[in-house]
Each structure stands twice: as C-alpha cells, then as structure tokens.
C-alpha cells in the first residue's frame, strides 16, 4: 500500500494531475499516514489533543494532591461553571460585561472611523490632532481607569468609557493607515475624472481601507472586553470582573477559572462576529478564494 502510494505520487509529480483515488487529506500531507481516516481531520486532532491535556491535568492534579485554591481540577472547574450558569449569576454578570464591552466597542469604532477619516483627509486636523493621538497612544490606557471611575461613578458609564478608550486606538490607527494605503493609480483615475474629495473617499479610499479597518476592529473587540473588565476591577457593583474579584478573595479558584472561560468565549464570539462581517464586506480581498457563481 505504502509503496503503491509513493509510486503514484511520483507519477503525479511528473504529470501534474490529481489522482482519482486521492482524498483531500491525502493531498495535504506528503507522508501517507497509518492513522485511520476519521482521525486525520484537523478539528478531530485538536479535540483529542485537548482531551489529552485535560486528562493529564486531572490525574497529575489528583496524584500530587494540589490544593484547589492553587489549581483546581478540570472537573471542579466544570462543576463551578455549571452551578454558576444554572443559578443565573454567570449569565447575568456576563451579560452586563458584554453590554459594557459592546457599547464601548461601538463608540470606539464610530469615533475611530470618524476621527481617523478626518486626520487622513484634512492636513490641518492631522497637524493639530495627530500629536495628541501619538501621545495618548503611548500612555497605558488602563492607568486612566481610576480617574474615569471618579468622573463617571460605579455604574455602566465608567465601564463603557474605559472600554471605548482602550478599543479606540487600534481602530483609529488602522483607519488612518488604511485610507492612506489606497492605490495611487486608482486615485489618479479619480483625479482624471475631476472627482471630488468625497467621491474619492467613497469610491476608492474607504473600500481600500476596509481590510485595515477590520483588522483594527478585530483588535478593538478584544480590547473592549479588556477595558470593561479592568474598569470593573477598579470599581464596580456587577459584571464578570466584579465576580472575578469576589471569587478570588474567597479563594474560590474553580469559579475564577469558570469566569475566565466565559471571558474567553466572549472574546472569541466577538472575534467571530467581526470575521463574519469582514468576509461579507471584504469579499474581494486576496485572502479569500475567488467567488465563483
């Protein structure tokens, strides 16, 4: 079997045509694998690898009697996650944090796109505002969280402000870079038709900037969750960040891990939403396959 395969692939190399019998997986890996076919899929492999890690974790943890306030076992974390979800505390907290993050993200996205466009389009705005942007960008935004709590109180608004502030910069920077990345020939085409500034922006610069903008939005989505959590750490009455601090001070580490899992899922979910939007709006970009009707 092995020999037959290698002979066939040598033949294929010469004639450059696909083997009728070759499966997709077979095409991808050069060395024919002895593993059964159902095990060769990437997702299945990752799944079993993860199961393996969890099993090792569980057994090592139990064998060495690691105290649960240092590192709980996977089963203990799963139990904590389940009970937290069932009594509604996790759902409610996650929902609060999600609202804060999404609101902060939306504000950051709009503000970043508007200000970024103004900076890229008008030299005077760039001259006056850009130095502040550079200065503020080098400031660790987390450091302003205590101040924002003083200004906006312990409620939603302070969380949204911190979240928006942190998520704002990646959007802004990518909008500026993206708008300036427009193809010189495409702009010449616009100029040869006496296009107005607005026409150039709408027809060429903004679409050309979209891949950059989505890269910025992707980072911003993660940062907005970060901002919401940090603000909740500094001062809050609710949310996953608040819950995390409470569990931590009670040394309920299993529940801390459960909260981290929820935060991870939240970030992944936001990332997927952005990617979904990107694929719809930047379908023409080189990353995806050509759409064949």
């Amino acid at each position, binding site marked *: 079997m092995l020999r037959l395969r290698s002979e066939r692939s040598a033949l294929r190399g010469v004639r450059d045509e696909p083997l009728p019998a070759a499966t997709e997986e077979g095409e991808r890996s050069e060395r024919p694998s002895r593993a059964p076919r159902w095990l060769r899929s990437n997702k299945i492999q990752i799944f079993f690898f993860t199961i393996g890690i969890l099993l090792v974790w569980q057994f090592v943890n139990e064998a060495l009697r690691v105290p649960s306030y240092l590192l709980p076992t996977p089963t203990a974390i799963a139990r904590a996650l389940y009970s937290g979800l069932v009594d509604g505390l996790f759902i409610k907290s996650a929902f609060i944090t999600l609202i804060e993050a999404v609101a902060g993200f939306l504000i950051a996205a709009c503000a970043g796109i508007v200000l970024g466009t103004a900076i890229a389009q008008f030299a005077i705005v760039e001259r006056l505002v850009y130095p502040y942007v550079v200065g503020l960008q080098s400031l660790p935004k987390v450091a302003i969280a205590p101040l924002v709590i003083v200004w906006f109180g312990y409620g939603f608004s302070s969380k949204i402000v911190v979240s928006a502030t942190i998520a704002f910069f990646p959007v802004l920077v990518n909008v500026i870079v993206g708008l300036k990345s427009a193809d010189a020939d495409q702009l*010449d085409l616009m100029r040869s038709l006496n296009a107005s500034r607005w026409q150039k922006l709408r027809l060429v610069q903004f679409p050309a900037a979209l891949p950059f903008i989505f890269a910025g939005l992707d980072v911003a989505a993660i940062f907005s969750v970060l901002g919401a959590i940090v603000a909740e750490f500094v001062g809050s009455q609710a949310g996953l960040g608040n819950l995390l601090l409470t569990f931590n001070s009670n040394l309920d580490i299993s529940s801390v891990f459960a909260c981290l899992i929820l935060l991870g899922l939240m970030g992944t979910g936001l990332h997927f939403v952005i990617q979904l939007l990107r694929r719809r709006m930047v379908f023409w970009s080189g990353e995806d396959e*050509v759409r064949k009707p």
Partner: protein
Amino acid sequence: MSTVLNADRSIVGSPAEIRITDLTMRYRTVSGDSVLALDRVSLAIQPREFVCVVGTSGCGKTTLLRIIAGLVRHTAGRVHLRDREISGPSADVGIVFQGPVLLPWKTVLENVMIPVVVLALDRDAHRRRAMELLDLVGLSGFEDKYPKELSGGMQQRASIARALVHQPSLLLMDEPFGALDAMTRETMNLELQRIVKDAAITVLFITHSIQEAVFLGDRVVVMTPRPGRIAESMTIDLPRPRELDAMSAPEFGSYVRAVRRLLNARGMTH
C-alpha cells in the same frame, strides 16, 4: 528637429484635437537636482488620428501623457485640447493606464460605470452604453463578474470600455498592453484597432514596442531621453484595417527599421 517643424507647419491653422507648443517639464528630485523631463516638445494631433509615441523608459513619454491628462502641471509651454488650454483633468479625455486599475470591490459593469458616477451623468442612458462597450471589447456576459475573475487581458479590455463610456473625444493610452504576454498583446492590438474605428476617437498611444507603434499608428512620434525630445514624427502609410500578417510585409519592416534607427541614433542602448 527640422522634420518636427515641417510636420507641425503643415497642420498650422487646421483644427487640431491636441496642440502642444514648446512644452517643457522640469522636475526637482528629492536630492534637489533639477531634471529636464521634456524639452520644448511641440506636437499636433488631428481629430480621429491614432498617434503612437515610442521611446525608451525615461524619455518623458508618460510625463507627456500625464500633462495632457491634466494630472501633472507643466513648467512652460502650452497644451490645447481643441480650443481650450489645459489647466486640469477634462471630461473630454479617457485614460487607459499601464495596468487595468479596476476597483476590485466593484463588478466589471460598475467599474465601467465609474466615470458616469463621478461625472454625474445620466446613469440609465449610460448603462446601456456601458453594456454596448463591454460587447465591443468582447466582455458581454462578464458584466457581473469581479475583476479578480477575469484574466489580465480581459481586465485591460474592461478598462478600455471604462475609458470610452463617457464619450470622450480623446483617448490616452499609457503602455496599456505592456503587462500582457505577446500573444494576448497581438490580439489586443487587433481589437483596439477595431474598437477605435467604431468609437471614432482620437488616440494618443504610448508604447516602448516599435512593432506595436507601427502596427497601430497613423503616425509614430519617436522620443529620445535626457532631455525628453521629439526626434521625429513619422506618418505610417499602411492600409487599414491592418491584419497581423501586415507585420511581415516589407513596408512594415522598413518603418520599424527607420524608427529603430532614430532611437539608436541618439546613443540609445540596443
């Protein structure tokens, strides 16, 4: 130099599509040096004439085209488009660039309609014209495809349709087929001849291929570099429509040799 003057004198007084008089273009490079890209270039192009400008890279031919397109401001001299002096881009001009320069996020038809949108012309009337032009350039059936789904030659055809959609009187082409393979290039030359005849338009065609220039042009203008000057303006007296076989005719060969001799006479590398 005397030939240029003679060629120009013969058409003084006639209504030229483009009249260029003592056009000079001086660049300042980053290092502060001054480069004379065009030195007192004079040229007149008649309506419906197909003029090819041939020369090696750096002879100022693209600069010449960009000045006529209104994309670059010249240093001295005058450029008239019909009776109007050029001071910027004009809706009377269509441009085909070196690459297709299609917007990848728009369909072929939307790309062809770009001048209509930017110039705020009547969209319904021009959509019909755009479809006719796509048919003319051999792209009917491809109007809803995206540029990525087209070959290089097809993309360049779409850009020709785009350059013609707003019914300009002058078509500027800047080495439009330079990036295509030899076979496609020959096909495109044949088709361009047909398209231009149907569109009844004046063409200024920049190229560095002598064969292409002689094949397409009613006239071939030979430019030499440093500083960019017109060495000769040569009328190509070959019957139209020209087939690819015409390239093996002895007259064709002698025109090509004459152009090459002019280019080489100025110390050009072969």
